[in-house]
């Protein structure tokens, strides 16, 4: 009986550790006055419908288009495919609104959001360090 409980606990722990490993989180620097954000707010920010949160200007940053994290972000937060987004950004470009800045890696995102007040970006949870704040969690599953 004890053995089966141990096995069960082990399976549960493995499940949660795998799940945590697969999490993508939206982060900002400690100097940005945002503690949490809703998915809808995040979508509005990344699509530049809204540019302020709590009265402060926000600067969203993206990873390159072929990044697996960006694909997860696009699917789970923006909920738009590439063709929808292209049509959307064509219209925004015409109005002088450019898509979010693209940074080359998660490391670059971390450096940028720590340095620039109001900047937000997404990285894997395991790459979060003490100088970053998690403001939204995206579960891959």
């Amino acid at each position: 009986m004890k053995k089966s409980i141990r096995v069960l606990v082990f399976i549960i722990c493995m499940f949660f550790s795998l799940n945590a490993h697969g999490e993508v989180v939206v982060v900002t620097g400690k100097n940005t006055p945002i503690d949490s954000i809703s998915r809808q707010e995040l979508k509005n920010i990344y699509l530049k419908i809204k540019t302020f949160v709590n009265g402060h200007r926000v600067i969203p940053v993206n990873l390159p288009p072929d990044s697996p994290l960006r694909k997860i972000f696009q699917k789970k937060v923006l909920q738009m495919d590439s063709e929808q987004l292209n049509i959307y950004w064509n219209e925004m470009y015409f109005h002088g609104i450019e898509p979010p800045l693209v940074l080359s890696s998660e490391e670059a995102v971390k450096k940028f959001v720590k340095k620039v007040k109001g900047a937000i970006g997404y990285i894997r949870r395991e790459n979060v360090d003490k100088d970053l704040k998690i403001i939204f969690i995206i579960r891959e599953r």
Partner: protein
Amino acid sequence: MKRVIAVFFLFISVVQATELQYRFGRGLSIDNRFYLGGYTSLQYEYRENGYYEYKVDDLAVLGFLRFNKFKIFGELEARNWYYKSKNTDGEFNLKLHTERIYLQYDFNEHFKIRGGRFITPLGIWNQVHINALKWTTSDPVTAVWFYPWFSTGLDIFGFLPVLSENTEYHFFIQKTKNIDHEYNNVKSDDFIGFQFKKYFDVNRYAGFNGGRFYDTDLRETTTFVGFFGYLNIKRFYLMGEAYLAHENEEHHTSYSSRIDKESYYLQMVYRVFSRNYLILRNEYFNDRSDNGYLHVWTIGWNYKPRFNISLKGEFQIFEKRANRFLTSFAVLF
């Protein structure tokens, strides 16, 4: 000549000191602050009565500079750059006119202000009226005959601070001549209007608007109200606008409730397969004061081989006019 050389060297030194990037369809960006791009289109039309025309419809350059809460935006355009129809010889028009030029300052999400010449911030179609962005080559009459496409004045806008934080408002006023009268559908020196647009999501919104303007050519004041809605679910797009207008031949005469003009369009777009879109539109227009009437069905196809390129073809069935076929090529660069 010395000046040109000096400017050239200044440009080279600036470029060398900054991050310069060009992406076809998104223009040239310098330091992610200044952007320079443009668009152009070619168009051919054939009517069942034998009339035809072809043209380089527009050739435009647009640029904008963003600096913190400031934005400066400019756009120059030569329209009908080359034009030839059944009744005319080929004509070139290489004159560039100011399509837009404005300065914008964002105080916060609720209060932004822009001054200059800008696209009249009403409805759906008027915001994306260039060939490279439209789903069809033709424009529904609803988007052409109700208010000036461009305004010269002030626009105050943002999201409402109370009641509904996802409702965007615009209040704009023009009390002067246009910065440039060219390429505007109505010549006006007096225009006031508003719009409320509720976002249920970025891809789902609806709203209403209204305004009044004085047409300096027709010496007529028009008061109008409109409604619009937009829905995009995956491959499917649905959009529509409806307007009612009352016209007074004299400026600032008292308003009566008579409806002189009414119009709507309803358009459905479906991505049949990747980069290929089927378009179906119904539009209606009735002008009692000028006995104008139009009822049109449009069926079209839009192929986007690349995100910034559009190849379109459509057939328009008119109730009381010759049907027509339109095709065009448009590109953002």
